[in-house]
């Protein structure tokens, strides 16, 4: 009986290892920009940038079941008291260097785009191919020790490609969007060479 239990536990451990090791993180090194992934528009769910010349990437999840996947951004319309609401695209970041210490200087980055009060998904799609005027949008970074505490500055943003996709049998839909961004928060935080490529379910967007 004891031996059977031992064999069963070994089998369970092996199966767990197999399940946990399935899947692969999306990261395609750009030969011209060390530490960054290439600019793509294939729904790889990856975002990379330099912050003060250090490469950052959205982290990946390794759930017990379901393999490895890159974390997705949150894209929401924030209602404000001003004449415009804010389209906020936020994502978690970590230094793109596995040898970096566990203590990360930043937790997340947000792109903040002023939009009209009646902003809809149709308006979002119409941003396809739009390079915004310099400084028209804001960018914010959040710190790991206090998520709500953020510093904001000016950003440049270019939505190179935004698409609405119908998946599988037609019952599911998604938005894919890719582009470039950079920005600065005063003189202390300089964000450069940012590029993103995401595909997220349409039902995760609140507009």
């Amino acid at each position, binding site marked *: 009986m004891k031996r059977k239990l031992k064999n069963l536990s070994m089998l369970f451990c092996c199966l767990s290892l197999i399940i946990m090791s399935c899947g*692969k993180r999306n990261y*395609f090194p*750009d*030969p*011209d920009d060390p530490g960054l992934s*290439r*600019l*793509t*528009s*294939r729904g790889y769910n990856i975002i990379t940038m330099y912050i003060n010349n250090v490469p950052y990437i959205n982290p990946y999840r390794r759930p017990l079941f379901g393999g490895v996947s890159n974390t997705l951004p949150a894209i929401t319309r924030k209602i404000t008291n001003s004449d415009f609401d804010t389209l906020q695209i936020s994502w978690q970041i970590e230094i793109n260097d596995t040898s970096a210490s566990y203590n990360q200087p930043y937790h997340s980055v947000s792109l903040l785009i002023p939009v009209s009060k009646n902003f809809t998904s149709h308006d979002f799609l119409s941003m396809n191919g739009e*390079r915004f*005027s*310099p400084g028209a949008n804001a960018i914010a970074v959040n710190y790991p020790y206090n998520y709500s505490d953020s510093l904001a500055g000016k950003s*440049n*943003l*270019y939505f*190179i*490609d935004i698409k609405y996709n119908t998946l599988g049998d037609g019952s599911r839909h998604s938005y894919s969007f*890719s*582009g*470039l*961004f*950079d920005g600065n928060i005063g003189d202390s935080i300089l964000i450069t*060479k940012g*590029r993103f490529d995401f595909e997220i379910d349409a039902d995760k967007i609140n507009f």
Partner: protein
Amino acid sequence: MPLFLELDYAFPLGSKSSGEAYTLNPALPQKVVLTEKISPYIFTVSVGFSIHLFTTKKNNIFYLNVAPVAVSNQTINVSYKNYDKANYEVMNPDVNSNEGGLVMSMAPVYYFHKGKQDMMLMLHLQTPLLKGNRDYLLSYKYMAPMQLTFGYNFYYHK
């Protein structure tokens, strides 16, 4: 059945394509189209055997060379002409690759018997690398070289 060892280093004809590059810099056009140049090289080591198919009345011989297992390395260099790397980023860029793997090849060979020398005509066909799809989609695929050879056989007599 005669065995053979064959080493091939090939410089296939390159190709040209195009890529789109984008910039945030407001002083520059937001999109430019670049000419992409793809330069391939192939090195293959094959071990195989020759199957004698038939001999004509004039002593012309037809063989089929078969290499069921060969090892090939395919190097592809990619460059974009006039690429301003400081300001622009190429969308879904192709990148250099250097990949190896197994291939199979075969070559029908026809020997023309003429006097003391034999002329030969060979059409060498090789499969692409026998491996799965790449993680990152490139515009070029693994190469399947086709090579037409015409030449003389020189015999050494002791």
